[in-house]
């Protein structure tokens, strides 16, 4: 009787399993930095179609954008990002170290140090370049108003700052003291520090403030294309920095949401020809050589240095320049 009872229970549980069901729809949250809105709006549509065809599953991707450092802090404080696509590796390192949401060697999980596309920093000036700004040195001159976001909250701003610093170091007789003096003079010309790169673009392009915007290359190209055709020009400085915005699955959250598989596929899709095309169309420099060659003409030729070679990596750069009390705090006092 006991055996019969058990058999009946199990048989009863399995009996109705007769029809096939479509996979349950799934939602991903991509927490990203400021200027990637348009890139991921486009990419998300493409990926959703790809994933539906591949698995039959509907995927909805929600986006959150803001200054990269601020976004990282939100994730550390509990914002449930399935994936993060931030401006610099240090911000994802912070999530790994402080929240323990992903392993500290997360950069090894995808090709190219988990940076599927790159960018750099350029100067955006008003049409005709009325102040005659041609290189970093011009930005520190008296009477020049410079727009750049706050390095404390914006990843792009940190790239801007380091690009200027690297240029100063590479000048004849350049050293740390001279670079610090130069960057200090440059930031004295900054009237408004927005929290993120998109805010700075708004300040410069829409509010008409300043003579030059230090900007992501993709943001500058987008501004010319969409926000102010015929009103702005890009100035490629003699030296800039190779920005490598990284991406990662936030393992802890993805596991909790049951989205690990689709989150991984989402990021891997950035490396496909389709993903690279979308990145290039939004003015990010693609990694894939064939796509890079196709879009080579839209990017100015520049000498690019890396954070590793000039600053000894992001950890060191963060501690030296952006930590509380470090160089940036020493050279920039709000309201002065």
């Amino acid at each position, binding site marked *: *009787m*006991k055996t019969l*009872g*058990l058999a*009946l*229970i*199990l048989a*009863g*549980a*399995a009996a*109705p*399993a*007769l*029809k*096939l*069901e479509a*996979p349950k729809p799934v939602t991903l949250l991509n927490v990203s930095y400021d200027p990637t809105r348009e890139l991921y709006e486009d990419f998300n549509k493409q990926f959703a179609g790809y994933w539906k065809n591949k698995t039959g599953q509907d995927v909805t991707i929600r986006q959150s954008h803001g200054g990269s450092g601020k976004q990282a802090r939100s994730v550390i*404080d*509990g914002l449930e990002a399935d994936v993060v696509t931030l401006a610099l590796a240090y911000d994802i390192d912070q999530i790994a170290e402080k929240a323990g949401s992903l392993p500290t060697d997360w950069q090894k999980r995808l090709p190219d140090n988990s940076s599927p596309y790159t960018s750099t920093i350029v100067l955006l000036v008003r049409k005709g370049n009325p102040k005659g700004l041609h290189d970093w040195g011009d930005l520190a001159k*008296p*009477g*020049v*108003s*410079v727009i750049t976001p706050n390095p404390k909250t914006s990843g792009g701003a940190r790239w801007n700052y380091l690009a200027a610093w690297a240029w100063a170091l590479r000048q004849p007789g350049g050293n740390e003291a001279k670079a610090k003096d130069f960057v200090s003079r440059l930031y*004295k*010309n*900054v*009237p*408004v520090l*927005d*929290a993120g790169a998109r*805010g700075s673009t708004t*300040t410069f392009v829409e*509010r*008409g*403030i*300043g*003579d030059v915007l230090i900007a992501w290359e993709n943001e500058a190209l987008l501004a010319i294309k969409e926000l102010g055709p015929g009103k702005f020009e890009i100035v490629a400085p003699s030296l800039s920095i190779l920005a490598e915005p990284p991406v990662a699955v936030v393992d*802890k959250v993805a*596991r*909790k949401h*049951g989205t*690990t598989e689709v989150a991984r596929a989402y990021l891997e899709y950035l490396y496909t020809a389709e993903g690279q095309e979308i990145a290039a169309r939004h003015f990010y420099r693609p990694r894939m050589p064939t796509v890079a060659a196709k879009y080579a003409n839209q990017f100015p030729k520049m000498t690019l240095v890396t954070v590793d070679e000039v600053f000894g990596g992001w950890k060191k750069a963060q501690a030296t320049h952006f930590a509380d009390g470090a160089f940036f705090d020493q050279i920039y006092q709000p*309201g*002065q």
Partner: protein
Amino acid sequence: MRGLESCTIGLVGMIAVGGAPQLWAQQNGGTVVAVVADTADTVTPPSLEARVEELDQKVRILERLREIAADSAAAAAKDRQSATANAKDGFSIKSADGKYTLRLRGYVQADSRFYPSSEAVTSVDNLLIRRARPIVEGAVGRYFEFRIMPDFAGSTPTLFDAYWDGKFAPQLTVRAGKFKPPVGLERLQSATDVTFAERGLPTNLVPSRDVGLQLSGDISEGLLAYQVGVFNGVADLANGGDDLSSAKDFVGRLFVQPFKSGSFRPLGFGFAASTGLERGSITTSGLPSYRSPGQQTIFRYNSSTTTPANNVFADGKRVRLSPQAYYYSGPLGLLGEYVVSRNEVTKTGVTAELEHTAWQASGSFFLTGEKNSFRSPMPKRPFDLKEGGFGAIELIARYGVLSLDEASFPTYATITSSVQQAKALGVGVNWHFTRAVKVGVNYERTTFTGGAATGDREPENALIGRFQTSF
């Protein structure tokens, strides 16, 4: 804005009437100002156009700074502490960083019990408060949570849950305190989510609450759930507190949902077991009594106040085994479990191992199309007279059997008052007005073997109605 405009006009006017300084210095904060000096002796003032441009930039900067300050204030407001009330979390207070929360929840169940044509039932038809349980839950920091749940429905308040959770990873939660030992499947379902007003016959053979320490977690995104723990050890159906002896019960449960897709995806099955030693006495037996679905006592071990030396008590090993499964697909839900409870008992120095068993299969179906699950669903159209919402209608049915070991009689139990077997068949309907409000009625007929002075106890026909509010 008007102030800024006035300021601009004023400054422009001042410059226009010749009040401008001879030498302009670049100002901190980045205002664009040209330094113009022809020679050491003569300084050419900036043109009027340049001055207006400068002031225009100043105004724009001030406006932008004000915009940024407003954005920052709005963002900060979002991060402030919040107090919320909703069906999912009850009433809650949350710190700005979300790490500290306090939730006030609870539920009340008001029942009616009628026993039509049940001659052997001694209880009268009755209206009663079955459960009245306020719940205080919260989080203290990133990893730690707690829950306290008493019940005020009985003649004396009883503590049901009081535990601390350390949630370190999806794969590892540490729980310490008083809570449900993970043995019976339906027992693990919340009292607000069970389909019938009273749980089925197998719940007789598993513990209700016990004090202990448990490790639990989900592995591979819910593919495998596990719980292992050490508890004081309590009798079947008991809500325990202090232990009767130093020996402890060890409890473990594995539950798998192995199919990520396809027809069997909603299938979950598992196995639970507990083992331990119990040492009762003639005054504190450490043994249970069992109930019918109508909550009548149908089995008890022999005990007497006049000759306590003849009382039966727990005296040795106690083992429980329980294979269990559920299947939730669309509006359909099925749940089945089987429980074996073995207890070593003693009477006047004579010890025996008694094995009681029980099983049940139950099903439910939402006529209104809600997705069935181990937890009560949110009605697709919650009850709302203005919006035309009706709530959710759920049909329920179950069959279960409880078999007491034949060796129980006559030494350890009396066949004229305790049954040897009970078979219960029940049907019912639940009306979920909202997630928080449910009204249900179920009818269950239970037939017995033994349990009467002559032959079998008369069947019990229990008609139970329930009005439930939870928040």
